[in-house]
Each structure stands twice: as structure tokens, then as C-alpha cells.
């Protein structure tokens, strides 16, 4: 199987409401990614697009609508959509296009414009609930997060203050990200605990913001990658898994499907001891507890122990002296940079790419990390997608 590398990346700012159209955002990110590795669209063999529900834009077959912005016109083109897991899955899909040997290069573009959907893009998500057995009860999207967060807290006897530090860490990290929507170097745990209660235990600052934005990366087979750059970042492992849609029949306190996706990726990457062999991680953090939940599912923290690991600084970007130090969401994550669904997942992959190349600027993790993992999650709290990158 040909080795596949990421050779270029680009992104727009993540903003609450962008003046640009969805197509314009996609074009900005895609053209920046090509420019970053001195390639043109002529060098691209195929295109993968990731974008969340059509209902955000009220455009039928958004992939076709976005195709010219994504550089897909006249090329083999496919869109993937696995809810919040899309941004990382798009990379997996791009990977197998190239790993199959059919294509030498693939442009992966993820775009989301949530602001068009009014009065609130949550409306587009209401249809994830079962139309007959759940929707008549008048649910909103926050419910499933609140129910899952409470199940997690109850299982391990966690308090809100044990979890809030994730928001603090990520918003502080995001203060150094030039595209971030909510970077804040001065935020405290108390600020999170004092924020408005939305759906207990979820409070305002436990949640990532609605955003518009786009991210793109360029994938290349080894023989092309070596020609294009002297710093290819290899895709060493990929994994994805799905749990049952009967979400009220599952143990919500542990993401089994994330563990399954991680085990698949670790096996492919030849990783036996993830905690030693993964140097940086970008776990999916649409809510603060989700980062902890996912670190446990990724086998990078003991079950129920990620909160205390976070509190002692194990996941901080610069606490090199901390035992088992593992910088987590050095970008600032969805909580800090923003959460344009599919683009947010790909932002995490792009961050690992920049970190491993030593190009993350003020966010650069010390110690020359050699291997990193990005993960996303979505649908009815049931899909896990994982990519492992290395140099």
C-alpha cells in the first residue's frame, strides 16, 4: 500500500458569521492549502469534501453546490458526512483514495457555514432525534450532551470544577491561534462555573461556539510527497467505528466506538503503548467534558481519571515536566478556535500537521513532537474517527 503524506494545509479564520459565502470560504482554504505546498489544481487528481447537514445551508446536495469552491469541477469528487466526525473522516477518505494507488494526490476540503440557519442552527440538528419516539417530547440538541455529561460525571463522581479546566486550557491555547474566535488568555475556572446554566450540567462556557469557516489539506503519495516537500507528514494510521443509534440503550459514560476507532488506528500505525508513542493529541472538544471522555476512549488516560490529569496540567501545552505529559488541543480546540462542524475536525488534523513540522508559531509544543493523533466524534454520540500522523 503506498504511503500517504499531508504536504500542505490552509484555513480561514473561524468567525461567528462570515461575510463570504460557503463557496468563497471553501475556495480560500483550498487555494491556501495548494499554495502552501506550491501546487496548483492541475496537480490534484481527486477531491474529497466534508460538510455537515444540508439543512444548515438549505441547499440540496451541498457537495455539488460547493464543488467549484473546493476545486472539484471536472475531477473525481465525493463528499462524506458522518456528523461531527466528518472533518477527520474526510482525511481518512482522502487517504484511501491515495493509498489505493488509484490517485497520486487528493485535495481534502471541509467547509461549514452555520450562521445562515436562523434563528439558531440547532434547529438543523433536531432531526437527529427519532421522529416518532423522541421528537414529540420537544428535545433540543443540548439534551443529549447534558445527558451524556451527567452519565460521565455520575459514573466517576466528578464535579463541574473537575471538568471546567478544559475550557480554560483550550481558550488560553486559542489566544495564540490567528484564526480563533474565542481565544482568551485570562479565562479562569470560576468564569466557566459562573456562566449561565443552559441544560444542567452544561453551562454556557462548557460549549464551543457556532462558527463559519473552512480548512483544506493536500494529500500525496510518497513519490509525489518527497518531490513536493522536504517535510512530509505521514498518515500512519486511520480508524473509524460506529455504535448503535439506540442511544438510550447504551452506557453513555464511556465512548466504546472511539476506543474501537483508536485501536484500529494504533494497530495500523504499529503503536503498542499509545501513552508513550503519541506525543500530541487533538481530541474532539465541542464540549469540555468531551475532550476528557475522548482522551479516555483513545486509551490516553485511565477511565474517569482524565479530569484529574487535566487539573495537574498533564494536558497543558507547555508543562513538559509533568509526568506522562501529553499536550492536548494545543490549537485551542473547538472550544477556543471555534466549531464550524466539519472544518473544526479538519482544523485538528491541520494543527497536528503544523505542530509536527514545527510551524505552529506561538502555539508550538516544545520537545519536537514526532507523532500526533487527531480525533473527531459525532452523529447520535456514536461515531469515532481517528487519524495518526507522524514524521
Amino acid at each position, binding site marked *: 500500500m503506498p504511503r500517504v503524506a499531508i504536504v500542505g494545509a490552509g484555513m480561514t479564520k473561524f468567525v461567528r458569521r462570515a461575510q463570504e459565502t460557503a463557496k468563497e470560504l471553501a475556495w480560500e482554504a483550498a487555494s491556501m492549502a495548494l499554495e502552501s505546498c506550491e501546487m496548483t489544481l492541475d496537480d490534484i487528481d481527486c477531491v474529497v469534501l466534508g460538510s455537515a447537514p444540508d439543512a444548515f445551508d438549505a441547499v440540496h446536495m451541498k457537495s455539488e453546490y460547493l464543488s467549484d469552491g473546493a476545486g472539484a469541477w471536472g475531477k473525481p469528487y465525493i463528499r462524506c458526512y458522518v456528523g461531527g466526525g466528518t472533518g477527520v473522516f474526510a482525511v481518512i477518505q482522502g487517504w484511501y483514495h491515495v493509498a489505493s494507488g488509484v490517485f497520486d494526490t487528493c485535495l481534502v476540503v471541509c467547509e461549514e457555514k452555520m450562521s445562515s440557519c436562523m434563528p439558531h442552527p440547532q434547529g438543523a440538528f433536531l432531526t437527529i432525534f427519532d421522529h*416518532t419516539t423522541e421528537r414529540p*417530547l420537544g428535545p433540543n440538541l443540548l439534551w443529549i450532551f447534558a445527558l451524556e455529561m451527567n452519565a460521565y460525571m455520575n459514573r466517576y463522581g466528578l464535579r463541574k470544577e473537575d471538568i471546567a479546566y478544559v475550557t480554560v486550557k483550550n481558550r488560553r491555547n486559542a489566544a495564540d491561534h490567528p484564526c480563533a474566535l474565542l481565544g482568551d488568555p485570562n479565562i479562569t475556572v470560576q468564569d466557566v462555573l459562573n456562566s449561565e446554566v443552559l*441544560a444542567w450540567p452544561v453551562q454556557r462556557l462548557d460549549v464551543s461556539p457556532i462558527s463559519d469557516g473552512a480548512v483544506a489539506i493536500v494529500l500525496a503519495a510518497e513519490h509525489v510527497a518527497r518531490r513536493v516537500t522536504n517535510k512530509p507528514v505521514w498518515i500512519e494510521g486511520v480508524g473509524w467505528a460506529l455504535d448503535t443509534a439506540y442511544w438510550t440503550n447504551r452506557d453513555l459514560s464511556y465512548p466504546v466506538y472511539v476506543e474501537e476507532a483508536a485501536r484500529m488506528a494504533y494497530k495500523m500505525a504499529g503503536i503498542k503503548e499509545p501513552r508513550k508513542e503519541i506525543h500530541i493529541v487533538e481530541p474532539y472538544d465541542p464540549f469540555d467534558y468531551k475532550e476528557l471522555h475522548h482522551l479516555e476512549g483513545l486509551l490516553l488516560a485511565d477511565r474517569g481519571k482524565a479530569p484529574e490529569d487535566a487539573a495537574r496540567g498533564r494536558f497543558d501545552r507547555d508543562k513538559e515536566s509533568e509526568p506522562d505529559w501529553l499536550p492536548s488541543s494545543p490549537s485551542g480546540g473547538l472550544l477556543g478556535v471555534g466549531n464550524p462542524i466539519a472544518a473544526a475536525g479538519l482544523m485538528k488534523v491541520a494543527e497536528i500537521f503544523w505542530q509536527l513540522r514545527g510551524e505552529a508559531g506561538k502555539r508550538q509544543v516544545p520537545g519536537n513532537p514526532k507523532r500526533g493523533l487527531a480525533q473527531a466524534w459525532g452523529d447520535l454520540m456514536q461515531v469515532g474517527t481517528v487519524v495518526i500522523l507522524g514524521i
Partner: protein
Amino acid sequence: MSVHINEFPGIYAKEEDFAEGKILYTVWYPKLHYAWDAGVAIGRYLAELKEGRIIGRKCRKCRRIMVPPRMFCEHCFRPTDEWVYLKDTGTVLTFSICYVTWDMVRVKEPQIPAVIQIDGASKGMGIMHLLGEVEPGKVHVGMRVKAVWKPPEEREGAITDILYFKPLE
């Protein structure tokens, strides 16, 4: 970021820019409605709710008694085998106290959604419903609850034939 990029694209549009007509936009209100067929398993589930009963479905292979009921077992990937009447009591597996509507408008009386494991179904088999007749601060995981039904003449064969679950003394 990379370090080689100085300026990132993306124009932050402000609400006043739209209000003052500096940025133009178009609005559309889709007007559609849908009618979802209940299907075989959920059709029976709803019919039983109308009678004031909760029904599940058993798979003889994995021995799970499942609710909501289904005509095929997604684990064994084979047909389920029999209908099983369950109780209308259960245990709270997790809950939330929700102060906002889906469009983020605050409400005075919070809603208390919960996942309730139904007595008579297999361990962990829950349904989503609401809790009522309880102080929000008193709700806890593991709380025993019982369904409060609509009066028989008002039931229509819907999940809302159960108004909510209340604490079981």
C-alpha cells in the same frame, strides 16, 4: 501556520452590518411537512401506549428484551422473536435540567429530560422521556420513577400518552 502565513482570510461580519444594509442577504422560509409511518415495531409500541402499557421485544439469541421494540436485533442481525409487556416503572440512568429551548430562549420552568431504564427490559435498556412532579434539585441518577399517563380518552397512540415520569415513593 503556519509560521509562513501572515494573514488569514475570513471576514467577520457584524450584526450591525446587516441591520444597516452594508451587507446584503436573502431570506427563505421553507414550508414543508412530513408524515412518518410508525412501522411494524413502533406501530405496536404506540398502540400499546394508547392502552396504557409499555411493550418491548425479545431476541432469543442474545436474550435481550429491548425497548423501544424492534423487529430485528441489531446485534445478532436476525429477527426478534416475541413481544414482552414491560412495567411502567423504571430507574433514572441520567438526566438534565434544561433552561433553554432549542433556539436558546430561556424558559421559567425547566424541563427535566432523562434516560429511564424500564423495569422488565434488559439492564441498560432505556427510553428518553421527561420527569415531572419533582423538585429539579431532588432528581438523581438511580431514582425510581413511574409513568404518569394521560387519561385514556385523551390518548392518541403517541409517546406523549405518557405525560412524564414521577418519583415512585
